[in-house]
């Protein structure tokens, strides 16, 4: 069938992200300098190059040189990312808080839909938050049931490549490197616009403690 290199090229050219969780074979293939160079060479023919985020743990395909046409594409994709930023971030916060976990979701972490659902159903604040998130145009749910909202959100996240479902029969999801990419984006925005997000959060948490 298709060679590993072909698969890697296909994933990259179809706009996919390669990380250890989503495709371990492809990821380790690209860790080899020789393989990397040969893929890069072929991509260069199409004015493309391999870009990475989060210290090389997530790989994707970028333009080598940006002309007018490319700028249009980049611009539309940028809008897509920024439009989905807030819903995704709110969802990440919800998952983290509902799981009672200290670490935010990142590559390779597991989310169990059923566990999440029972916590959210038992906590009115979480279910309110979930309803708010599911109303965003990214997810666009009109349901009022926690069950349906969650399922729709997870389905969308699967489609967008933020999550994987290793076993189709189980409602267990694994986060991919794209989640880490999202963090990189926030960090980038935070740094380049001097938003001081971390300080704001700390301040708010401190005030919450005082109250």
């Amino acid at each position: 069938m298709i060679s590993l290199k072909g698969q890697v090229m296909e994933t990259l050219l179809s706009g996919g992200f390669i990380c250890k969780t989503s495709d371990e074979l492809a990821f380790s293939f690209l860790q080899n300098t020789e393989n990397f160079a040969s893929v890069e060479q072929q991509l260069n023919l199409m004015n493309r190059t391999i870009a990475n985020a989060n210290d090389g743990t997530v790989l994707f395909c970028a333009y080598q040189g940006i002309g007018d046409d490319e700028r249009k594409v980049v611009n539309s994709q940028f809008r897509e990312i920024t439009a989905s930023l807030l819903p995704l971030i709110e969802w990440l916060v919800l998952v983290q808080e509902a799981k009672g976990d200290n670490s935010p979701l990142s590559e390779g972490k597991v989310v169990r839909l059923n566990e999440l659902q029972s916590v959210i159903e038992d906590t009115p604040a979480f279910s309110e938050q979930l309803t708010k998130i599911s109303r965003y145009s990214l997810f666009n749910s009109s349901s009022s049931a926690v069950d349906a909202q969650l399922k729709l959100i997870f389905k969308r996240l699967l489609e967008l490549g933020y999550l994987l479902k290793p076993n189709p029969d189980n409602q267990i999801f694994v986060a991919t490197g794209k989640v880490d990419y999202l963090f990189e984006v926030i960090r980038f925005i935070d740094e380049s616009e001097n938003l001081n997000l971390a300080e704001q959060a700390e301040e708010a948490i401190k005030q919450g403690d005082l109250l």
Partner: protein
Amino acid sequence: MSHPLQAAGIKFLKILAKHSDVIMKAYLSGRVNELDFDAKVLEKLTEHGVLWRPEPGEDLRLRSSIRGLLENNLRDERNRQLDANIGTKLALIKTVTSHYKEALHHQNYAEAEVYIEDLTEHVYGLVDSLKSNVRNLWRRIHNEFGYVASINAKIRENELAQSQLTEMRKQLEMFQFDELATIAGTSRELRRLLVVQLQRSHSEISQELSIAQSKLIDLLGKFRQYLHRYQLLKGFVLHAQQKPDYQVKDYSAKHNVPSLFNHAKAIIKPASIDVNNIEHERLFAEVVSHIKEIRHANVGVKDKRQAQGFEINDIEQIDIESDLIKQNVESYFCQVIDSGQGMSALEYHQQNKLTLDKEVWVYGVINGYQGLSSEEQDFFEIGTEGHVHPQFNGNYIIEDVELGLR
């Protein structure tokens, strides 16, 4: 060892068993509420060194030895005290060694026996306590300080563990093997205990400690990263709440697009299965097997099946159009046999003024000939008349057939 000691020990353990509720309460809450229990019981426990009062005005507390026993047995996660008081233990070992050597010198073997047993216990005790400290450390590392809730607390716990670890390493430096070797002298027993045993454990423990240390530093980095990420997330949500009209700057319009936002367009669309490719056959079969079959014709058949009568009649005569051709073909064949001369099909058609279409007739004759058994076919000879198609090579158009006898 001696009889009265055994009796006293049993008595002490019985006291512990009898007042286990008091002890466990003290263990769990850290102190004893004196109003909850009988004053006599508390007094008795204090007398036996189970409880103690640090200051006159303070509450009664559990003795650290009892607490240590419980923590050890219950494998209590809260057991986070590292006992690294090695200096005194080493001193004790040295003292007991001197006692032993003196007893040997005076040829008091019974006493020496007791001392060497004592010494063995001390040495193993020391090694054991060191090892359990390391194990304890590892346990905390393995569950990533799961016993505290917030990430900040985890960072603090990690720092505490690191300081304890440094302390342990410092204490390990107190082992001076040249000195211990001198003390052991030529005695085989002593060398085994003081040099071989201790040295082996020492190297094992210090190796484990350095692994633990790197792991701790790793974890600390991870915790800090978690914390930072969480703060970023939370901060972004807060920011969006405070400034609802906030828009992310358009980085894609910059002269140098940041590599994060430089996303190439997807140019490969999903491919489909090639039905002619053998390699795809299995996949194709799978897809086909998943197609749901809907048979509308079957809907409602069930009730029609019930109670339906039927009649048995003679099979009606069916007039098949080809009967006419068949009869004519038969008579054509008969005429050829009777006359013994060949005749073309179209000639017969003309002669008998058949109403059949000429093409159908010729085809019927060929069909009739092919329909004969091979023995019967051998009587006849069939020849075709026609022409080659002007445009397409090799296509022969039959216009007429001639049938004759062999």
